């Protein structure tokens, strides 16, 4: 009986591997507008810390996400996402995650940081911790979480908590691709940091295979 069961399982696995993946791909561009100057707080007093943050990127990235119109996609928490603090900056600047994901906040600088957020979808304060140390936050509600450092006012980042596993961040030119999208009808969400929540920009149909293209301007701030 045990031999028969093993045979059936292996056969099923082999058959599954041989089947074509019934998933499409969404690719395209978001027209990123040039990033406005980043406001820098004026620090007259902290003279010993002469670390200068790297210049801001020319464009701020956007997040593109797909939400099924009918039914739902099984939420798989993002795999061990990390938001680091290095050279007085959060890296990455924008981190989209699936609801329920635990994010690791590391410190790679030679001085303390104190990550905190006052956003309604997640309020937290990680306290001061040293280089090489980490703290964790589970993001269990969807929404935009503004992340700051309590010591370095110029540090700012975003965690975008989504009710879907199908998302990506655009590159510096606005290009993106979401792989392995199950066939079906989806709403395309686009978010950038001027928006308080992701904007639903279009309904789109993803076939069982092939690449569907999509381009859009940045949603306007309402």
């Amino acid at each position, binding site marked *: 009986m045990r031999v028969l069961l093993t045979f059936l399982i292996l056969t099923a696995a082999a058959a599954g591997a041989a089947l074509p993946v019934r998933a499409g791909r969404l690719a395209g561009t978001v027209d990123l507008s040039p990033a406005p*100057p980043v*406001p*820098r*707080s*004026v620090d*007259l*007093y*902290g*003279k*010993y*810390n*002469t670390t200068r943050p790297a210049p801001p990127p020319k464009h701020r990235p956007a997040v593109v996400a797909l939400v099924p119109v009918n039914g739902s996609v099984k939420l798989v928490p993002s795999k061990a996402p990390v938001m680091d603090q290095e050279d007085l900056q959060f890296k990455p600047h924008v981190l989209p995650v699936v609801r329920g994901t635990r994010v690791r906040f590391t410190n790679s600088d*030679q*001085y*303390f940081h104190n990550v*905190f*957020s*006052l956003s309604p979808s997640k*309020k*937290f*304060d990680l*306290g*001061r*911790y*040293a*280089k090489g140390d980490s703290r964790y936050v589970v993001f269990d509600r969807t929404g935009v979480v*503004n992340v*700051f450092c*309590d*010591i370095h*006012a*110029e540090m700012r980042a975003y965690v975008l908590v989504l009710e879907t596993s199908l998302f990506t961040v655009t590159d510096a030119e606005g290009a993106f691709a979401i792989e392995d999208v199950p066939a079906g009808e989806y709403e395309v969400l686009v978010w950038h940091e001027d928006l308080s929540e992701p904007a639903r920009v279009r309904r789109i149909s993803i076939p069982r295979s092939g690449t569907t293209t999509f381009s859009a301007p940045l949603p306007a701030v309402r």
Partner: protein
Amino acid sequence: MRKSTRSVVAMRLRHHPVSTTLGCALVLAALCAPRANAQIAVSLQAAMTLVGGDDFAEDLNDMNRGDSRFGSVRALVLGRGKINDTTSLYLEVPIDLAATSSTWLTYMRPFIRMERLGGADWLNLQVGKLPTLVGAYGERSNSTGNALIGVPLLFYYHTAVRSRLAVEGPDYFFEDGVRGGGFRGIFGGPVTSFQGAPLLYDACWEVGSEVYGAHRGVEYSLAGTMGSVSRPAISENYNDGYGVTGRLGYIFRDGALFGLRLGVSAAAAPYLDAGIVDDPDFPSGADVEDYLNTYVGGDLTYARGPWQFFGEVGRVGYEVPNVDPRLTATSYYAEIVRDFGPQWSLGVRQEGVFFSDLTASDGRTGTWDHDLGRIEAMINFRFRHGTMLRAGYQKTWFPDAGTLDAELFALQLQVWTR
């Protein structure tokens, strides 16, 4: 009769050459910045405070101009004009509705910061009106992350020594109202008619030049100044002397002590006003530069998780004409801050000032000013990024002069921009 603009400018140039020059440089830089592709950043802090308690408790927190951290409406404009990658012009403009009207220019605080001189990360230069040079409090004096409202006694307490008054001898300090009277104006006048010499004085920035830097955890600062720690020259040199100020520190960058910061500071400079030589009690043949104001102190800062600890101890010395030995005052503060989540925090500071003994001509011995202690506690609530409400209590006590004890309650709304 109203003075003409020309005569006012001439007067300011004569009496406040440094700040006038720096102020003009700032205006010029602001005008030239767009053309030179410079970057200008401005931050604003504002605070509205309701205070209750003893009137003297409010006086005890007053600075020379009558301004106070507990003032009803205060604002601070911070500006930075980036001239190039390594040079920036900084400006701090404190505004306090309780302060006496004065030549506004002298209270603008411009300085130029030049970083990485010769490409060396550890070699930087500041010239102008410089933020407090000794100790560690100056760095967070106006920080929006400061959990307490009051300034530590070490950084402003007005003693019975006066830089504009020559005394006959030690007996002066035993006269009624002298000890504990540093917050009254000179000759018993109103508070704002120039108070006693502070211990250190964070409220007024010193004109000078400072080289400073940090390398592998070692911090250093060496400055030449026009005034002294108790009598900063905010715009003009009050005598012909110059001072020197230094700080050496170390911050642990690895291991269990990561973040622990230790420092020692020292300073020496003449502090008496030049005009004092005309006082009949000023020793004949002496010079104001013969009398020094000195400082030696240490600072410690540590933080871990939701806890922060700040502590400093320092000894200020005054050489006073006709008074021997040198007068000293030792002051300390220990401050603990505990965060409770992202919105709530509690800060508590315990501090004290102890004065050296002096013997009067009739053999009486006592401290040359009244020792005092203080505790201040504040609970803070951050509504949102840049908005804080705080409520707290401050008690000051004088073990040898209980009638001066004072309590104060405060509620403050603070807002600031990034």
